[in-house]
């Protein structure tokens, strides 16, 4: 019942007589949906319609893997190396100068330098760990999506084992982990195993994720509505978005550092670009227009609602990107749910 056909909504008075056409009859043309246009005079054009329920299962949009040599990466790596070398050189000079002046100062400088180097190494290690972890999650997502299609039993066990490893750090999942591991030896098909894992491990996290997104959206909408300057809005929305992405990544087991955040934010925006176009056409516009009353009452209020919805949409994209399993067994949170939260909150406040 997606789109009520306009012509069948005519009143009963304009009742159309039943008619039947042979597909191989004279003057009958069967065309694909794309080519459908105005039929030539005297011909009958038949366009088979695909119904959503009959379409093959929707395959998760897998983010395109980067191909080819990454010149940008080389540039940034070498520039960073040079900067590091330059820094090292100047620090060495500085310490030599300090030793020349007084031995005590020299040792102090050397101590600081060593501490800084240690911290730098620790930070780099943490960033690297975060990046590897994000990559693992992304790969797990892809592998799970593949198992859902291929129904490969062995691979599903491997995916679940990796998933359990990632989930190990989350104490809230202790019980779910145990119940899931008890199933790994049973005879369960690959795709079902993934779905089982999703239901066991992801459902508590999904609830929390939805809460995080709606809280962020609410905060953004309130701040937008009351902030005196557009620049403040922009900064705040940016900060809130980044914070949301980080929170979601942590929730689903990622440990993104600064570099990880950059890569995540890029993925989220890319995902938003892929899915946003379709979604914006229906739910968002509908939501915004439907609640246009709010905008009529007050422009700032309308902007607040709009910004909140955009944040929510971003949060949903971030969930898609950071979640280690694709949505199959559990419902994907949709904007409408969050919008409801948002507006309910808004009404409560007024």
């Amino acid at each position, binding site marked *: 019942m997606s789109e009520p056909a306009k012509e069948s909504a005519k009143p009963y008075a304009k009742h159309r007589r039943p*008619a*039947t056409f042979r597909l191989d009859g004279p003057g009958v043309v069967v065309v694909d949906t794309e080519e459908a246009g105005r039929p030539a005079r005297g011909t009958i054009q038949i366009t088979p319609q695909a119904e959503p329920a009959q379409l093959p299962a929707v395959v998760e949009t897998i983010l395109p893997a980067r191909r080819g040599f990454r010149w940008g990466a080389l540039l940034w790596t070498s520039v960073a190396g040079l900067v590091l070398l330059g820094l090292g050189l100047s620090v060495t000079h500085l310490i030599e100068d300090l030793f020349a002046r007084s031995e005590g100062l020299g040792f102090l400088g050397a101590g600081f330098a060593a501490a800084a180097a240690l911290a730098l190494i620790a930070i780099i290690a943490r960033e690297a760990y975060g990046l590897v972890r994000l990559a693992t999650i992304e790969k797990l997502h892809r592998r799970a999506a593949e198992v859902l299609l291929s129904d490969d039993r062995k691979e599903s066990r491997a995916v679940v084992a990796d998933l359990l490893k990632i989930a190990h750090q989350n104490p809230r999942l202790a019980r779910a982990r145990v119940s899931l591991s008890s199933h790994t030896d049973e005879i369960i098909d690959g795709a079902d195993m993934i779905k089982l894992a999703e239901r066991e491990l992801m459902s508590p996290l999904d609830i929390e994720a939805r809460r995080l997104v709606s809280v962020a959206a609410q905060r953004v909408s309130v701040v937008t509505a009351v902030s005196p300057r557009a620049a403040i809005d922009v900064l705040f929305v940016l900060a809130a978005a980044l914070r949301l992405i980080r929170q979601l990544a942590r929730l689903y087991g990622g440990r993104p550092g600064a570099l990880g955040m950059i890569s995540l934010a890029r993925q989220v925006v890319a995902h938003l670009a892929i899915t946003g176009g379709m979604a914006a056409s229906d739910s968002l516009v509908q939501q915004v227009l439907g609640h246009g009353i709010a905008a009529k009452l007050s422009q700032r209020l309308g902007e607040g609602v709009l910004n909140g919805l955009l944040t929510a949409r971003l949060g949903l994209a971030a969930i898609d990107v950071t979640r280690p399993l694709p949505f199959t067994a559990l419902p994907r949170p949709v904007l409408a749910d969050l919008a409801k939260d948002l507006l309910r909150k808004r009404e409560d406040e007024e």
Partner: protein
Amino acid sequence: MTPSLSKIVEEARLSARALIDYGESLFNPTIRLGVTGLSRAGKTVFITALVHGLIRGGRFPVFEAFDSGRIARAHLSPQPDDGVPRFAYERHLRALVEERRWPNSTVDISELRLVIGYQRPNGADRTLTLDIVDYPGEWLLDLPLLGKSYEQWARESLSLSREGPRADLASAWHAQLATLSAEGPADEQATLEAARLFTDYLRACRDERFAMSLLPPGRFLMPGSLAGSPALTFAPLDVPTERTAPDGSLWAMMVRRYEAYKDIVVWPFFRDHFARLDRQIVLVDALAAFNAGPAALHDLEAALSGILDCFRVGRSTILSTLFRPRIDRILFAATKADHLHHTSHDRLEAVLRRAVNQAATRAESTGAAIDVVALAAVRATREALVARGRDKLPSLLGTPAAGESAGGEIFDGNTEVATFPGDLPLDAEALFNGVDAFHGLSSKSAEQTDFRFLRFRPPLLEAAADGAPSLPHIRLDRALQFLIGDRLQ
């Protein structure tokens, strides 16, 4: 009906049976799902598709327990009642999938037991036994006879046969009836003749052009092993009111046979099968009524309200389960929804809702849940948009069964066609608006009717990797959710 001693004994036996059933269900919960519908409504196809979907898996997004994966497995198991034929699931499935023809229609009661292993949302493993009982809807229409005397039934049948298109069909029988005297001596030959003509009239009413539904006694059309027995050899007489049948008269003989029919046919069915049902789906072929005309639609409405009246509906409580079984969910399903474009499904549901409305409100007040759905257990068509000049007709693509005709052409069963069946009105009331609300085959020729629903062959299916393909359907999952979804929680 005055409660006689035998009836009280029967009721007591019924309660005892219910008590035993209840004890069994404590350990092994069982649902007895009654599947019924007037003939050609699609009972056999519905059961075949339901069982196949549960056993082999299908697309059931709305059936929560199945879609969330809580149903671990389902398999067939020997049925509990040894005296009832088994539903020939395998044979019907073969007919559907391999021979691409609709299975033969139900002429008798049959039963199939399906054991569903599932997990409750809290994680506990459970088994639900689903006993599917398939019986002809005509038998249901007999149930009101239990509360009617012969005189009452004869008067009603006669007045019904003198209305609308029925009068023409009944003319031969009416002519013979005029020669009979109710108070004259019993005459076996005249009775045989009357019963034959009466049966012919009932059969004629069922023809596709008229598609009448309200045709008790149902066993006249499906006699089975009782054919020719005195219990099936009676007919309504023009009986005078205010008097009783004199001994030895034709009237007295008819009364005796009518009572025998109730005792031999109707009451055993009620006791052994109907009274033990927990859930019921009534399949209705509303499209046949649209094909035929307003009279058929009115008839269908009357038949449906007759059916609803005889359900022992009401919420199942412990007490009621112990002493009197009750059906607590009834689903009315307009079948063959695949013969309509999906934009019209809501209207089909509205028509059916309108037809069961009166009876449904009564049942709802007693606590039973009643729902209406437009479904197709096996979907035989695809949808298409036909552009003819400026008209855009929401149509269906499919292969009409051999012998179906439309627009003066008779199909051979291999030609694919696109058909636009006609617009259902937005307001269901419009269809019930008197005898001229729309034109059907009973009053007009095939070219002038307002609706034309072709019968399509079952779809051509590609076999899945593991053998049997899954059957496409429309809203079978919603029906399942309503009928057994709550018991899988």
